[in-house]
């Protein structure tokens, strides 16, 4: 029970079907507050689909996706919220969300789940700084009086914009892109674009950050930098990170918890060390049946 107490995201019986294809099959796992959780598995295992369900881009065929803000005690209202048919329930000590009932932009705005994409999706024709300001859209929109006060040049908006720029500057400093703040995002090298996309997601003030293969295409040096960045996000901001990753070394180094998917089914769930030595995981990664693992391991000298 102690484990469930600081759960931030609870995925229960998540199933996603595309016609006849079951991309995610009855998947359940939890992400704890302040943890880095990794979702791994071979290509086509359904990892991105899980992300799309959590962030509201897909509506799951079945399952419940609960997320809490505030005190862990709000979980007690989960069943009542489910029965009520509402999207969220606001308590004095926190809010409970059912993500599968929310459209994508509300998952980001209200439940504060931010994400990046497997194929980077920056705004290439806008500057690096502008990318980070668009991420703070909702706060700035409010400060600009939904545009009315902003058009008239009210000082409250000017102040809000200045603080938004300061925040962007902080993040640019952190990811080492301050000098390129006024360059178009599409001009950045690949590794920098990946970091910028993470910074942009962080500028939305998330409680949960979902990263889809952030280390893909990075060289070892950039990959090490990325690890540091993710650890800093976890430790300084107490933000939970859910990570899809192919690179096992990244996963093993930084994650607190690993969930392994294969053909949409969860085959392992636990601490990195335990998962690493799991026969089913090795089999899935090597593409062989579970019984043969021992002999293959012997062959390759593991």
């Amino acid at each position, binding site marked *: 029970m102690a484990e469930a107490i600081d759960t931030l995201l609870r995925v229960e019986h998540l199933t996603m079907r595309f016609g006849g294809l079951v991309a995610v099959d009855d998947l359940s796992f939890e992400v704890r507050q302040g943890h880095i959780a990794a979702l791994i598995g071979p290509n086509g295992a359904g990892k991105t689909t899980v992300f799309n369900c959590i962030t509201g881009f897909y509506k799951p065929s079945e399952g419940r996706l609960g997320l809490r803000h505030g005190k862990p005690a709000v979980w007690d209202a989960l069943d009542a919220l489910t029965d009520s048919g509402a999207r969220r329930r606001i308590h004095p000590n926190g809010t409970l969300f059912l993500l599968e009932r929310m459209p994508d932009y509300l998952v980001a*705005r209200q439940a504060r789940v931010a994400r990046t994409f497997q194929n980077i999706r920056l705004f290439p024709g*806008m500057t690096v700084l502008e990318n980070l300001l668009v991420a703070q859209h909702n706060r700035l929109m409010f400060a600009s009086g939904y545009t009315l006060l902003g*058009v008239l040049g009210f000082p409250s908006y000017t102040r809000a914009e200045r603080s938004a720029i300061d925040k962007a500057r902080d993040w640019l400093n952190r990811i080492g892109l301050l000098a390129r703040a006024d360059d178009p995002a599409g001009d950045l090298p690949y590794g920098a674009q990946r970091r910028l996309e993470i910074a942009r997601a962080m500028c939305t003030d998330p409680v949960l950050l979902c990263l889809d293969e952030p280390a893909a295409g990075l060289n070892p040096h950039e990959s090490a930098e990325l690890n540091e960045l993710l650890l800093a996000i976890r430790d300084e901001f107490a933000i939970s990170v859910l990570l899809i990753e192919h690179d096992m070394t990244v996963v093993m180094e930084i994650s607190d918890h690993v969930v392994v998917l294969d053909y949409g089914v969860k085959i392992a769930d636990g601490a990195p060390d335990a998962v690493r030595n799991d026969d089913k995981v090795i089999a899935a990664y090597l593409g062989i049946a579970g019984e043969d693992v021992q002999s293959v391991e012997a062959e390759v000298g593991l």
Partner: protein
Amino acid sequence: MAVLAHSAGESGRARRPNIARERSPFVVALHDAGITALIAFGVLLPLIGFQTVQNINEVLVLRTRWPLLFSLVAIIGASRFVYAVSVAPWLARRAARPVAAAPPGWRSLVGRWFVPFAIGFVIAYPAIVLFSAGFRGALKWVDNFGIQILIYVMLGWGLNIVVGLAGLLDLGYVAFYAVGAYSYALLATHFGFAFWILLPLAGILASFWGILLGFPVLRLRGDYLAIVTLAFGEIIRIVLVNWVSLTNGYAGIGGIPRPSFFGIPFTADDNGFAAVFGLQFSPIYRTIFLYYVILALALLTCFVTVRLRRLPVGRAWEALREDEIACRSLGINTTNTKLTAFAMGAMFAGFAGSFFAARQGFISPESFTFLESATILSIVVLGGMGSQIGVAIAAVVMIGGTEIMRQLDFLKDIFGSTFDPTQYRMLLFGFAMVAIMIWRPRGLVATRSPSVFLTERKTIAADLVKEGHG
């Protein structure tokens, strides 16, 4: 045998460049010009070579126009020859040269002074025209050129919000122009409201229609959005044609009250504008007044757009054009964002429409055909999507150009008295568009200027900026 064939092919391939080098550029150009003239002949033969006319018995007869056809073909062939001899090698040399890093000094100087100079010029324009053309001549220059161009500048800027910033292809923009015009015409003739009350009202009504159209339509993307907006434009026009009891159909609405100078009408009688200010009556005063009204409206459009670009809405519009999915992942309600762009664009069209009705005094559905939408859209595309200056220049060139075409009577001396230059407006229009699209595929001003900067404002190259996908 196989080896032989292979080596023959090799040597053949090796020799070919030599042949090309041996042929003099003159011969190549002649060859090129010959082919171009042949193609031109093929294309123009049915278009220009033959003409159908009704004779006295009202029977269609086919007439040929060989001199005109051959002179055009000759002109085209000769131009191609000149191009191949002089321009093409120059272009090739320029392409081979590395791109100069810093823009030449005069260009940045022009960039800095262009806008203040242009605004000064348009403010002084009526005075300049009055001075140089006199009272009678000035009317044409202020009305046909000044006001006409400014209406399109304003419409271009309005559509620029939708197409250039938000990246939503709207082919039915003229519908909102029509809504504005008919709102003013009907409310002013039936209820006698003043121009300055109806102007904002027409804008609000048009943006209301924009939202109404937007709700069902904005979930569509790309081609679908374009087709549905096109259909919407036609629906509005057809309603205007057929709802005779309200709009008077094709006959249109006449006798629309003209705007007054803060209560003083521009009439010839004793309390008219001229009499009150002790001037001799002349229609030019009203025209100049209208000129400044549309100038103020256009500048307002520009001011608001520039302002909005620096606000979160404007940035969200541009982000939407760049990547809609990324926008949603950042918590931006893309439907609302699109709706605001649509409503904002429609509002300025409504303003322009009510001005148009007030200036003409008469409107009919004829003024709101698809051609109008296409003209406004081509102004935006030619000007460079998202660029205020580019759109203004494109409007001046396109609308000013067509107006000038109406004035080219001297061409009659060259091509004979039956030659009507206005008939060729569209042809030249098309040529100009093709030329600009070849020369600058992303419009006159294709670069994007960032809405905010930390240390230095650097313009963004056109190839990075997305055009939107509906």
